[in-house]
């Protein structure tokens, strides 16, 4: 398990002649096994920070260390390998591959990793059971509800056993029941497998699950507080 450290991250975006500050001297350290929520209004920089930590975007300046590795210096191919082997992503819009079934979507990352079919099937079966999708594994995304699709996306994110899962507004498209179910799943995975979760959200219900809540505004961290473990879950 790797911790992630960000030092003085800065990122600006240009929209026409306007310059927008995404991150402004952001520094933070997340230890392995933490369950962290990044909160803040739209445009506060939480998605930008998440993308930078996941190697999807590179900061203009500053350093990002995953374990001991400077990921902000890695080339495109190396970043792809890093995401493949060490980071799981859960997106707001599920983002499943529509031509693959639920099981095939889950196995997709393992296929890229080059795992043997037998091991892929065994792991996919186990994770399908864990996220409560047994029996519908051969359905394509269009045949699944929003909650089921998001659970497939979560299963895909964790099936390759990453050390870090980054989730961007994972409950935004879910009803409250599905959102509670998903957050409970995250919490269980965090507690049982020690997976580090960093969740960007502006949903108070999701924040209630956090053991560490980082609030952002205008690209800066404005507060960073540790909380009681899984208060919403209890």
């Amino acid at each position, binding site marked *: 398990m790797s911790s992630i450290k960000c030092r003085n991250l800065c990122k600006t975006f240009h929209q026409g002649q306007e310059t927008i500050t995404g991150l402004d001297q952001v520094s933070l350290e997340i230890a392995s096994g933490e369950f962290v929520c990044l909160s803040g209004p739209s445009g506060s920089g939480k998605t930008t920070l998440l*993308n930078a930590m*996941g190697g*999807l*975007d590179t900061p203009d300046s500053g350093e990002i260390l995953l374990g001991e590795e400077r990921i902000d210096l890695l080339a*495109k*191919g190396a970043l*792809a*390998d*890093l*995401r*493949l*082997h060490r980071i799981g*992503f859960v*997106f707001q819009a599920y*983002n499943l*591959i*529509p*031509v*693959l079934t639920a099981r095939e979507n889950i196995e*997709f*990352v393992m*296929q*890229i*990793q*080059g795992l043997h079919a037998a091991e892929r099937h065994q792991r996919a079966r186990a994770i399908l059971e864990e996220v409560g999708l047994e029996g519908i594994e051969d359905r394509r995304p269009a045949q699944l509800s929003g909650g089921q699709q998001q659970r497939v996306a979560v299963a*895909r994110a964790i099936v390759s056993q990453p050390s870090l899962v980054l989730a961007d507004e994972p409950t935004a498209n879910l009803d409250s029941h599905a959102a509670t179910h998903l957050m409970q799943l995250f919490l269980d995975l965090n507690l049982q497998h020690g997976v580090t979760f960093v969740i960007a959200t502006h949903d108070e219900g999701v924040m209630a699950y956090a053991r560490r809540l980082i609030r952002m505004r205008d690209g800066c961290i404005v507060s960073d507080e540790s909380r009681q473990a899984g208060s919403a879950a209890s």
Partner: protein
Amino acid sequence: MLPLAAIIKLAWRNLWRNYRRTLIMLSAIVVGVWAMIFMNAVMRGMVDDMIRSAIRVLPGHAQIHHPLYRDDPSIVNSMTGLSPELENALAQPGIVGWSARLRVPAVIASERESRGLVLLGIDPATEAALGFVPGPIVEGRSLEGVDDRGLVLGAKLVERLETGLGKRVVVMSQDPQNNVVERGFRVVGIFEAELQAQEEQSAYVGRATLQSMLGVGQSLSELAVLGTDYRDLSPWFAGLQAAVGSDVELLSWTELDPYMASMLRVQDGMILIFVGVIFAVLSFGLVNTIAMAVFERMREFGLMQALGMRPITILYQVLMESFLLLALGLVIGNLLAVLTIRPLESGIDLSGVADGLEMFGMGTTLYPSLRIVDMVATSALVIVLGLLASLLPAWRASRFDPIEALGKT
């Protein structure tokens, strides 16, 4: 890297996401491939026919004669028989047959008319092996040996001379001393030829009879050689070249008939242009289809990159979609070509435009020639050029910025 089987599965399923678009593009590829192969077969059939006709009337695939014979095809410029080395070389594999001829300009006269023509002294047995036949005998008989004293004329010439089967005609020519020699012949056979010129301008007689008439002993005007394929003389030409002496020359049919040789090159060029035009039209459709498919799935490609797929794998995946579409089109197109061309190989009757065809030295029946090598070449060309055309959209798919792509709806 995603395993090949997974790339194929993903590409195949993606291909049928928008099945209408795929079917339209597939139809275009099928029709394009069919048209390329069909046109190729028809043009090859036309040129084959022209060249075979020309070879039948003229030289075989190669010809040996006196070095000055081409400039002055008179009896003075003839060869003196065959050397044993040459006879051995003519027996080598790759040579289907050969025949020695005596060919002289002559004047033929009936009791009513006279005309100039080419008088050929032939050996009917070796000419038959060569396929050098004047045409179907419609009256009387064909020549029966080198000593045959009869004369075989074309139907048109018989009509012009106002003579007929069994009638006597007088043939005049010059001997090596430039003396006029003449001899009476009885018309023993009348032939019809696909080309009117052949019917009008040539007459056939036994070779020994003509040699005797001209008093030239065993002299020959030309020795025609036939190989297996007029397009490729290399298996035997060099061997034969080594065996001919310095007092004679060996020329291939392309040297003997540069017009026909250039027709062959023109045909290859025309086919290339035709294939190029069809492919250009196809490639617009193909690039459009692949580009549409790529831009519709920008988000997916962004996701794949976010999940750790390398850009090169995305490039392979898009190219695989293109490859599968092309391969499917090629299989159906080739099948369609075989099904439509095979029944036509027995001949397409073009007698309605016979006059125009004769201008090109063609017969009235067109035999499309479907060759495996043409089908393979067309398929390889379509696959290679198709993949090259798809390279740009595939490359663009692989260069999407994952964050930007994931933000697309």
